[in-house]
């Protein structure tokens, strides 16, 4: 008879209706802004620039080599190289980005910029609940808005950041050893030179 299936279906929906008030397991919806799923470490949203230490301008790792700008598939990165140089973390004089903009309305979160960066300066953020009431300016992130500390990087991608830190520390140690060797060699040479020269003034005097 017509209507049997309808009644069966209505019993099913009624069971779901009342069941949702009785058992909390049925309601799988996460109440999003208040409740959140645990952050997945491998997640990525948009790139940011890592800086060391407390001052974002001083500690910025980026040396404006513009590799990311060239590699970026949708061309959302704009970099202007500085005229002068500043010492980097290893004390070496480097260029720095005078302007570094990323248009996140164009960015497709491909992570290629982070892959190609030889200085570990650009990494992927995990912050996904972004919004802006300014369609153009609000989505064009400048250097200051892109800069995030190394501590923040460690907090969002612990494993990856630890590896990066270890690599950078090793590199720094190597640089320091090299510099030390160089200074030692230099001081040795100076000492040698100093050892060899005492006679000379006498000669000079004689001349």
């Amino acid at each position, binding site marked *: *008879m*017509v*209507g049997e299936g*309808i009644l069966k*279906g*209505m019993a*099913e*929906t*009624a069971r*779901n*209706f009342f*069941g*949702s*008030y009785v058992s909390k397991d*049925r*309601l*799988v*919806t996460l*109440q999003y802004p208040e409740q959140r799923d645990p952050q997945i470490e491998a997640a990525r949203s948009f790139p940011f620039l890592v800086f060391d230490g407390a001052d974002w301008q001083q500690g910025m790792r980026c040396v404006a080599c513009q590799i990311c700008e060239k590699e970026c598939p949708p061309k959302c990165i704009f970099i202007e190289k500085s005229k002068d140089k500043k010492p980097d973390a290893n004390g070496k004089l480097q260029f720095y980005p005078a302007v570094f903009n990323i248009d996140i309305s164009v960015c497709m979160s491909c992570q290629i910029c982070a892959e190609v960066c030889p200085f570990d300066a650009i990494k992927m953020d995990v912050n996904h609940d972004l919004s802006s009431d300014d369609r153009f300016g609000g989505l064009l992130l400048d250097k200051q808005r892109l800069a995030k500390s190394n501590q923040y990087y460690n907090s969002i991608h612990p494993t990856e950041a630890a590896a990066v830190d270890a690599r950078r520390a090793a590199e720094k140690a190597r640089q320091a050893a090299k510099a030390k060797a160089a200074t030692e060699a230099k001081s040795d040479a100076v000492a040698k030179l100093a050892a060899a020269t005492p006679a000379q003034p006498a000669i000079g005097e004689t001349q």
Partner: protein
Amino acid sequence: MIQTLDQIFVLAKHWLLSYLPAALQPLCSALISVATIILAFALLFAITTWLERKGLGRMQNRYGPNRVGPFGILQPIADGVKSLTKEDIIPITADHAVHFLAPVLLVAASFLGYAVLPIGRNMVLVNLNAGVLYFFAVGSMMELAVFMAGWSSRSKYSLLGAMRAIAQMISYEVPLVLASIVVIMQAGSLSTVSIIDLQATYTGIWPHWFVFTPWGFAGFVLFMVAATAESNRSPFDLPEGESEIIAGYYTEYSGFKFALFFLGEYIGMFATSGMAITLFLGGWSAPFSFLTWIPSYVWFFAKLLAIISVFIWIRGTLPRLRMDQLMNLAWEFMLPMALLNLFTAGLWHFMPSGSLRWLVCSTMVVVPCIFLSRGLKQKEKFQVRTYHYSE
């Protein structure tokens, strides 16, 4: 005291009118009643949208709206503000005047039916002696509004939606009216007030509602199915089948005009539900004689809310019908059933009351129902579909 509470709105209106000069009283009396009806049912619309979203959510194991106010109760206000502040877009090729008038006419037409709907004892705007006829006459104006919307938008989706809506509404208007004729036959009157007066009597504790007779029950079910189709609600929501034709006849509407369509549809649904209550469920009368102390308007709105929740329940349960299923149901099942029901009601009237009358009339309802539904089922022949152009 109970009497006063029951008539409190009537008394309040008379008290207000007593401050006015006699010449103004008829006009102001009508105005007050109209304003009250519009306010009450617009408020009911707001509550229903919230209830519907909550109920459907729970049926799908979701919470439903729960952000605006406690339990999301202020959601209708937020929706209203949103639709008021939205940009009102009119297609450049649309017929501007008709495009503007369609939602206005829809809302006006859906409100007109309330003129003859008694929402409580002595609480009817006008007691027309052709009330039921008037109700169905203004109810069919909604089809005009729907077609105006579809035609004036100059969009194929709007037009297709409107065509579907017209086909469906005209098809289902036939069983809708035929199902209500049995009540008119029994009551011998087209006046909604006298139809309710006839049902508001009791044998023992039981009321004389028409739904508690075989023909009345069949008529009520037929009426409700047809009313669902008339108000374009699921499972008969083909005119706005979003998977096929976007939003049907209101595809090209935005902002508050879109909200007006929404309002019109719900108001129309309340009106037909109210008519079903009037014809079959005893209007404002209490379901048991010992409950008559509860005010009549409370009973009316309780019944209305019950019917609305069944509508929501159905919407949460059934998938949308196919066009041929829709038409077959109307013409091959509901129309014969409604016609047979007329004979059943006639027989009921002429047979002496007793269990024999019940037996004969119940058989006259159940047996054709079984056979007709079997006829509906046998149509389902599955065959291999051949594609001529894709080979």
